[in-house]
């Protein structure tokens, strides 16, 4: 038996340990897998505690394991609980449901139907029968939600580090690079640069000291896939980093993770400590000549640090400002040393490629984009959560088949893809296969995979204003086109949302946007105008309605709204006045009420509170 602090001497010992762990697992007849990461926000830790306590008092602790796992994906039904071996998926689960689950499922073997999903009037108890999972291909996420991220034993039992052992004993670094190149893997963080080529560039540069950086500074609003990976399967990320390090000849790695993700930071730190204690980090890993160390560093709240040269500046203790390339980080990176920077999801793919081979990996996807992609599905969609699909899946499959469509069955208007660097893809492209190249042609980018669904109640001018405000605030200020150009763009958009726009503003947005794109230093500036340009391109009529008719068709832009109470319909019930946060509604009981326009902040609380449709929105 491998004790907690014994380095694993070689590949054979790792294999023996795995066999032992798998055997140990067989002593229990079932497992209760509670998502304790994303679902924690909704009380998942109380649920897992209730399971532990109640299983103990029922005398079932020896038979049933309770495991606190990473994300199961279907966040809309949080807190989620998955029961093995049946694979029943329950959610939302409260501590009060635990007795029934123990009785019906863990003793009786049957599903608790009221906690299961419903599709087309049918109950779907088993995870793979859920429409949410049916159309997915969960390769990168296969272990997320199945293993305890704080236990290296769980990772090893599922085969993590076994491919590393194979690589270290039977592959040269050049073979690793050619395998990754042949797989067609492209960077999952945004730009889609071929990973194998990036590694080859870095390998070819001479240097005693090289670095691998895992970019976990997931800053795109609306993206949370890297957070889930680091929280749920940290050892898979470390395995990917080790392989990258072996391939390029690096001795050191750094995980650069957002401080806003405390659970990801904690799990990454634990994983590094455990890997070190087991000799999977440190000198002569698994008895080979390969030595590698990993540090965890936290970001300090700057979106620009997702850009690779800014990230390096931040790691060097400076303001996170990008610099011109070349030299590329592969030539001169962290502390002047050759450096490879890969995104979390990219690194999570690497062990899969080296396990199953390039051919198996590239069998999935489209001509120019191989493998799967994880999308963070959010906004106006029923099944918010994390979705992994083959590249080339359509928006319709993601939003409707998997996402379950839009609440209230309102019409789909657009999907915002790629965060502040991306754009809005309108409804006529619902059936377009999504890959790096197709999305780019529409003026968006796949980016890290944030996918925010928008319906008729989302104003596209407001969305452009929102993202421009974001990039303006996050611009590091180094180059003029980005610093000043985004400010000018924001002024124009604010003016339009206030009903003070001019028709020539539309041409100004386009020419200014193209200038910012052509002349900015880094990716943030070069893509800063995408949200404005793509909305002008695809939703020109909405801009025109704001400018010409002083009207916001979606009813979002507050300066253009006016709430009034219809005297005929008002019963004087006072419900609206009670909800009004600024006491702008006056009126005697049972008499029609009135809104004092000068006080009204146009929050819409009165309209939602009214049971008689007496509040009109103009």
């Amino acid at each position, binding site marked *: 038996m491998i004790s907690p602090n014994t380095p694993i001497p070689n590949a054979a010992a790792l294999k023996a340990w795995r066999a032992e762990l798998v055997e140990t697992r067989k002593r229990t007849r079932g497992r209760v897998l509670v998502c304790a990461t994303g679902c924690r926000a909704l009380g998942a830790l109380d649920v897992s505690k209730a399971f532990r306590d109640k299983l103990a008092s029922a005398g079932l602790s020896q038979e049933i394991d309770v495991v606190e796992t990473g994300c199961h994906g279907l966040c809309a039904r949080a807190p989620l609980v998955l029961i093995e071996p049946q694979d029943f998926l329950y959610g939302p689960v409260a501590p009060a449901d635990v007795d029934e689950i123990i009785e019906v499922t863990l003793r009786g073997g049957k599903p608790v139907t009221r906690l299961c999903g419903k599709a087309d009037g049918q109950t779907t108890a088993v995870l793979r029968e859920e429409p949410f999972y049916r159309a997915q291909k969960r390769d990168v996420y296969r272990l997320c939600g199945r293993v305890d991220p704080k236990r290296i034993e769980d990772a090893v039992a599922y085969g993590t580090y076994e491919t590393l052992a194979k690589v270290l004993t039977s592959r040269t670094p050049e073979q690793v690079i050619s395998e990754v190149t042949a797989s067609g893997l492209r960077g999952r963080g945004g730009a889609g640069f071929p990973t194998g080529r990036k590694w080859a560039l870095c390998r070819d540069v001479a240097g005693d000291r090289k670095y691998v950086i895992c970019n976990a500074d997931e800053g795109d*609003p*609306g993206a949370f896939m890297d957070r889930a990976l680091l929280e749920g399967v940290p050892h898979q990320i470390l395995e990917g980093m080790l392989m990258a390090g072996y391939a390029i000849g690096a001795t050191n790695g750094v995980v650069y993770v957002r401080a806003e993700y405390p659970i990801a930071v904690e799990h990454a730190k634990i994983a590094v400590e455990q890997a070190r204690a087991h000799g999977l980090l440190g000198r002569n890993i698994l008895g080979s000549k390969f030595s590698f160390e990993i540090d965890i560093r936290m970001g*300090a709240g700057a979106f620009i640090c997702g850009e690779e040269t800014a990230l390096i500046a*931040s790691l060097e203790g400076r303001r996170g400002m990008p610099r011109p390339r070349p030299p590329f980080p592969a030539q001169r990176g962290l502390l002047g040393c050759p450096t490879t920077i890969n995104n979390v999801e990219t690194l999570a793919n690497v062990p899969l490629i080296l396990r199953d081979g390039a051919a198996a990996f590239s069998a999935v996807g489209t001509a120019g984009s191989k493998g799967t992609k994880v999308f963070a599905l959010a906004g106006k969609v029923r099944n918010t959560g994390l979705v992994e699909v083959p590249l080339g899946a359509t928006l319709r499959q993601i939003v409707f088949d998997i996402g379950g469509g839009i609440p209230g069955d309102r019409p789909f208007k657009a999907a915002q893809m790629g965060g502040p660097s991306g754009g809005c893809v309108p409804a006529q492209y619902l059936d377009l296969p999504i890959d790096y190249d197709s999305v780019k042609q529409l003026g968006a980018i796949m980016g890290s995979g944030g996918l925010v669904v928008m319906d008729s109640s989302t104003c596209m001018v407001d969305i452009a204003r929102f993202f421009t405000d974001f990039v303006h605030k996050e611009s590091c200020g180094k180059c003029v086109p980005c610093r000043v150009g985004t400010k000018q763009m924001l002024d124009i958009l604010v003016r339009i949302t206030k009903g003070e726009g001019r028709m020539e503003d539309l041409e100004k947005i386009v020419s200014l946007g193209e200038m910012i794109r052509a002349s900015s230093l880094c990716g943030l500036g070069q893509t800063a105008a995408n949200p404005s340009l793509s909305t002008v391109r695809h939703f020109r009529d909405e801009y025109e309605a704001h400018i010409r008719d002083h009207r916001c068709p979606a009813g979002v832009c507050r300066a253009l709204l006016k709430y009034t109470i219809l005297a005929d319909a008002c019963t004087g019930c006072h419900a609206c006045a009670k909800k009004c946060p600024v006491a702008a509604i006056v009126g005697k009981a049972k008499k029609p009420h009135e809104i004092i326009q000068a006080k009204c902040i146009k929050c819409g609380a009165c309209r939602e509170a009214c049971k008689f449709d007496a509040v009109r929105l103009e």
Partner: protein
Amino acid sequence: MDWAPAQRILQQMSPVGESDLIPLLQNLQDTYGYLPAEVLTEVSRQTGIPTSRMYGVITFYAQFSMKPRGRHTIRCCRGTACHVRGGQSVADAVGRVLGIADGETTQDGRFTFETVACLGTCFLAPVMMVDNDYFGLLRPEKVNSILDAYP
């Protein structure tokens, strides 16, 4: 100003070079709650990292503050998913209830109010955090009762 905690941090991180500046500032802020100018001056004297360099870094990153912070930190998410689900009215409500703007601290030192780019919990949108507790699926009128629980 109690100098002992900073001394401990410097010892633990020794040797401190310029590339350790951000973790150093993070540790100092964790301990003092903010970055007091007197402490930075002394740290600069001991490490040789110029205070101008520190000031440049502190003002660049949103996480750092040279002013004392409130006992509790409210972080309202202004990410995309929260925005399309009404996050702005929640942030407005917090500002109204406390009578302060984004980035400010209440007179009584009870709350510091910030908005952040994205908390990565888009499925709970609109969402805010008070210290380490998440509150999701918010409405502006819920803000008052949530804040009441943090004296």
